[in-house]
């Protein structure tokens, strides 16, 4: 089984360290919009990370299904955007239920850092764990996101 990022909202402190580390690792600058994941700090009671599920928990709201040019592909369990084929139409950003599909000149997304995810390394609270997919944890995050509208 391919390991995935699994969010544990109950462990998240809302520090957003993972976002910064992700952005620096991939882009060499800090920009929360470059991070391939998001931390939501809603109020004193609720903080949670939103991560890419690599097609394991998105159901019909799947970026692969909605890409009109089939530029989003899956290899060895990892969903990626073929940069040569992406037309930057934004359909994937629109549909992503976790808000983690990004767009600049082309769409880009979490690649699990090639199997050693930076966000996991920098989360001492185990709010993001690299392990076998757990659908119920992603569903928990999806519900939290829906509450935010």
């Amino acid at each position, binding site marked *: 089984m391919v390991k995935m990022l699994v969010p544990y909202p*109950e*462990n998240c*402190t*809302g*520090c*957003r*360290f993972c976002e*910064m*580390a992700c952005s*620096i*690792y991939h*882009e*060499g*600058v*800090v*920009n*929360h*919009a*470059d991070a391939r994941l998001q931390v*939501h*700090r*809603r*109020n*004193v*009671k609720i*903080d949670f990370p939103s991560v890419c599920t690599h097609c394991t928990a998105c159901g019909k709201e799947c970026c692969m299904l909605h890409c009109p040019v089939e530029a989003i592909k899956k290899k060895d369990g990892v969903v990626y955007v073929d940069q040569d084929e992406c037309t930057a139409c934004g359909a994937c950003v629109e549909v992503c239920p976790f808000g983690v599909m990004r767009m600049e000149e082309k769409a880009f997304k979490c690649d699990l850092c090639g199997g050693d995810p*930076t966000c996991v*390394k*920098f*989360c*001492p*609270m185990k709010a993001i764990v690299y392990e076998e997919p757990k659908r119920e944890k992603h569903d928990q995050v999806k519900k939290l996101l829906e509450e*935010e509208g």
Partner: protein
Amino acid sequence: MKGYTGKILKIDLTTGKSSTRTFDESHVRKYLGGQGFAVELVYHGVPKGTDAFDAKNVLAMAGGAFDGFPIGTGGKVAWAAKSPATNTLAESIMGGSIGPELKHAGYDALEVVGKADAPSYIFIEDERVEVNDASDLWGKDTREVPEMLKKRHGWDVKVACIGVAGEKLSKIACIDCDDRQAGRAGLGAVMGSKNLKAIVIRGTNDLTVHDPKKLLALALQYQKIYEAAGSWVEDTKYGTGEFLGWINKDRGVFPTRNWQESVFNEREKIDPYYWATRYVTKNKACFACTKPCGKLFEVKEGKFKGVAIDGIEYETLYSLGGTCGNSDVESVARANELCDLLGMDTISAGVTVGFAMELFQRGIVTEEEAGVNLAWSNASDAVPQMIELMGNRKGFGDILADGVKVAAQKIRKGSERYAIHTKGMEPPAYDVRGMKGHGLSFMTSTRGACHLRAGFYAPELVGKFWKWEGIDRFSAVGKGPMVATMENFMCVYDSVGLCKFSRGFYLIAKLPEVLEAITGLKFTEDELLKIGERIHNMKGNFNAREGVTRKDWLLPPRILEDPIPEGVAKGHKISVEEMNLMLDDYMKARNWTSDGVPTPEKLKELGID
């Protein structure tokens, strides 16, 4: 110069206009960031003799040099203004996300001047800067305000705001962001005096990094150091109050019942070792903190059902607990929540209630006057009730709403004898009669009684820190130069934006490599301490200019006259001779006059104009 935006945003609330100015490397080499930037804006921006509530007062805010970058615990933001409580240049540091967001918007510092003619809030989105109507926000609490503003501007904006106490110019009002506070010295009232309810920021720009790979490697290295430390486990499980039992039993310096005692014998249930497992439902952290001491404390039943706070911090366990004789942790949590919602500093608010309770004990204030039964035995109800009155300036709460110094001036009848403060600010949770150098730091702190301008409790309680060993907490000898050095040290911390709970990991020697990875600029340890010295001297010179000199620094009578009555520190006090010895040593170490005025030579050496 990477890591900095190189820009300062100035907003004049009187005209509604904003402007930006740029700075170069020389500004960084002088002031570094965070507290240094904020202090510089107030120092050069506030004319002599300006009242803290005058439109000419400057409210400054700046993220530290590490702010916005992945360095664990490095997300602190500094606020500064002339304080209405102390009439000194006061800064207050918070762990809110507003500092990093300001940088993403393109500014290292924000300078707010003037006064809006009606309730307003500032909205910043990169180059777009607006002063908007806040009439619907006025009167709302510090959780309602961000909720309303996030509905309007999107969930990802960052909001700093004041509560009702700030609107009503309470001199102990704080500024709130993410349930974290810039608590001390009444800066919330400065915001209120400008009719400024909130600052809302969304920043979308990149923060550039000199050496991204090195920075990530350093971040991981320090992460491992934190996680291996005992304090990581303790902070994560119990929060900052972890050592409450030890401070009482082994050190005997936990001020109790308005400093009449120094051991709180009824402390069992306010000790985190009791409450953490029963009430804490989640860990909370400041921005960029991977060493979280914040706790989501929830009360699920009983008369305080529904309370949910990020706390309870050590200082608050003292101020709303021990020094009010309050052993009911649920009541402490409720009072803490009220302080947060109404926007009052928990330390000053709690110490002020404890002061009123002693006046009640002595018959100086009656239940009829107070409107609340202020008996120690009624603390569980009395403390939250009085806090609510204070935050809303109702009844006797109006008299207490400006802290103990002002309250004593209004109440009179000898109440001044029981008002514990220096320079008009209420003290934190360390009975300095049993830690004399820390007592000196209460006096020399530029913003009044404070544990974090020098952090001298750590060296004295543990007996060693940094380059010192064998420190005798009961001795006044040699403390002057040490306190001066620690003040410089702490100014550096507040300028890079690191949490002071990390100071034992980095000291000063480790900071240059992090600064270089972010900015590309090289600093030596001595250069950083010189910057710290410059910042402290600017504050000292500002205060002397405002007429706040040695005569205003002195310790309150209780610390000088009443020995600690019981516990391991029994019999200790700071005598007038010891106080003067420490002050004289300190002035010499600083090259200040014996009155506490920086000398022209010192100012010239540090390039302060």
